C-alpha cells in the first residue's frame, strides 16, 4: 500500500530515535571510542584532505561499476552533488567534535539514502570501501610503522561503526514509521453501512479486523441500526483475510449488541479455511447465524423479513412484500 510519509528533519529524527547526549555517550562507550581516537583521527586531517578527491572518485567509480548502485546516480548533476557531499563527509571524519551536530548530519545523510531506496547492503558496502581505501592510505603514509597505521585505522573503524549504527537506525526507524502509517491506514479503512432494502443493512468488512477497528465498526453499526430501524443486518466477512479467536469474539459482540437493539445479524462469507480454523480454535459460535455467501445471506434476510422474490411475466424478478399479501388476503 502506498503511504506518503511526511518528511522529518534531522533534529526531530534524533529526538524520535532517542539520540540524546546520554545515548551518544553510551554508544561511544560501547565502541570504546575515546579522546585518544579523536586525537588520532584529527592527526589524519592532512591525509584525508590531500587524498579526498582521489578516494571519492574511486568511490563513485566503484559504485558506478555495479548496476544495483549505479542506478541511483544516473543523473550527472545529482552525481556531482552527492560527490560534493561525500567529500565533505570524508574530511569531516577527521575534523573532531563528534557530537549532536555531527549526529544530525549523519542522520540526514542516512535518511536520504533510505528515501532513495538504497539497499542496506550497499550502504554498508560503501563504508567497507572507505575502510579499504583508508587502510592502504595509512600504510603508505606510515611506511615501516604498521602499528601506528593500525591504531589510526582502528580509531577510524570505531567512528565509522558509530556512523553505521546511526545509518542503520535511520533505516529501521523509517521502515517502522512506514509500517505504522500503513497500519493506521488499514485501521481507518472505512466500513460503510449500506441499506440494501428498507430495514435491511449490509456491512461489508474488508481488511484486518483488530480490537479498535471492531469497536468502531460496532459503534457505527449500532447507530445505523437505530437510524434506519433495521431488523436484519448482514455482516459480510469475505474480505477479512484471517479470523482468529479475537476476531470471532468481536463478531460475537457485534451480534449480541445488535440483538440488544432488536436487529438480527447474519454473518456471511466465512471461507472454508476460516471455518476450519474457528472450529480448531474451539470458539463457541452457536450464537452466530452464519450463511455461506452474501447471496445466501440476502435470501435468509428476505425470509426473516417476510419478503419473497417473484418473477413477473417478462422474467424480471420483482420483490413482493409477503406480509402485505397475507394481510390483504
Amino acid at each position, binding site marked *: 500500500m502506498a503511504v506518503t510519509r511526511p518528511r522529518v528533519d534531522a533534529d526531530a529524527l534524533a529526538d524520535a530515535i532517542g539520540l540524546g547526549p546520554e545515548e551518544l555517550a553510551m554508544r561511544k562507550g560501547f565502541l570504546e571510542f575515546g579522546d585518544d581516537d579523536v586525537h588520532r583521527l584529527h592527526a589524519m586531517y592532512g591525509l584525508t584532505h590531500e587524498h579526498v578527491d582521489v578516494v571519492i572518485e574511486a568511490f563513485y567509480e566503484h559504485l558506478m561499476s555495479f548496476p544495483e548502485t549505479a542506478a541511483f546516480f544516473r543523473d550527472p548533476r545529482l552525481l556531482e552533488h552527492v560527490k560534493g557531499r561525500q567529500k565533505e563527509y570524508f574530511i569531516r571524519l577527521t575534523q573532531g567534535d563528534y557530537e549532536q551536530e555531527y549526529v544530525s548530519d549523519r542522520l540526514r545523510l542516512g535518511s536520504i539514502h533510505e528515501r532513495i531506496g538504497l539497499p542496506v547492503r550497499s550502504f554498508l558496502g560503501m563504508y567497507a570501501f572507505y575502510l579499504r581505501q583508508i587502510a592502504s592510505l595509512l600504510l603508505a603514509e606510515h611506511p615501516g610503522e604498521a602499528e601506528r597505521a593500525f591504531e589510526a585505522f582502528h580509531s577510524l573503524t570505531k567512528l565509522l561503526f558509530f556512523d553505521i549504527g546511526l545509518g542503520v537506525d535511520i533505516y529501521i526507524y523509517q521502515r517502522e514509521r512506514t509500517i505504522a502509517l500503513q497500519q493506521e491506514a488499514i485501521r481507518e479503512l472505512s466500513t460503510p453501512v449500506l441499506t440494501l432494502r428498507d430495514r435491511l443493512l449490509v456491512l461489508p468488512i474488508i481488511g484486518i479486523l483488530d480490537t479498535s477497528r471492531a*469497536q468502531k465498526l*460496532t*459503534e457505527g453499526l*449500532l*447507530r445505523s*441500526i*437505530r437510524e434506519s*430501524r433495521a431488523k436484519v443486518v448482514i455482516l459480510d466477512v469475505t474480505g477479512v483475510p484471517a479470523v482468529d479467536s479475537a476476531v470471532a469474539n468481536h463478531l460475537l*459482540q*457485534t451480534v*449480541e*449488541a*445488535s*440483538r*440488544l*437493539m*432488536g*436487529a438480527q445479524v447474519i454473518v456471511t462469507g466465512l471461507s472454508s479455511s476460516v471455518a476450519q480454523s474457528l472450529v480448531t480454535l474451539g470458539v463457541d459460535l452457536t450464537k452466530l447465524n452464519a450463511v455461506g455467501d452474501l447471496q445466501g445471506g440476502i435470501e435468509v434476510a428476505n425470509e426473516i423479513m417476510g419478503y419473497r422474490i417473484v418473477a413477473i411475466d417478462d422474467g424480471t424478478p420483482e420483490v413482493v412484500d409477503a406480509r402485505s399479501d397475507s394481510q390483504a388476503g
Partner: protein
Amino acid sequence: MPVPILKQGDCLIASIQSALTDADLLDLRDELAERVGRYRSKGVIIDVTVLDVLDSFASRTLRMMAEMIRLRGAETVIVGIQPEVAFSMVQLGLSLDGVTTVLDLEEGLAHLDRSRRARVAHAGG
C-alpha cells in the same frame, strides 16, 4: 422514583422515566409480576430508552423479571436499548439471554401483536 405502568389492551407498558436505583428495579419487578396476574396480561413491554447505563445488577434483574413474567403467563419485550448501552453491555460481558429485545416501543407492540396472532392461529388451528 416509581416506574409508571400503563395498561394497553392485554399488554402492560413499563415506561422508565429516569435513572433507576436497585430498589426501584426490584419494586418494578414485583409490581409487574403482580399486575400481570391482576390484569391477565399477555405481554409486557419494558421501555429503557432513557437509560444511559445498564449495569450487571440491572441486566440480571431484567432477565429475572422476564423469567418471572413468563411463569406468570406473559411475554416480556425490552425496548429502546441505546447503541452506547448495547455496546458497553457486550464489552462488559453482560447479556440479556433469553429476553426479547427490539428497537423501540412501536416494534415492541408489533412484536406482541405478532405473538398474539400466532396464538390465535394456533388456537384456531
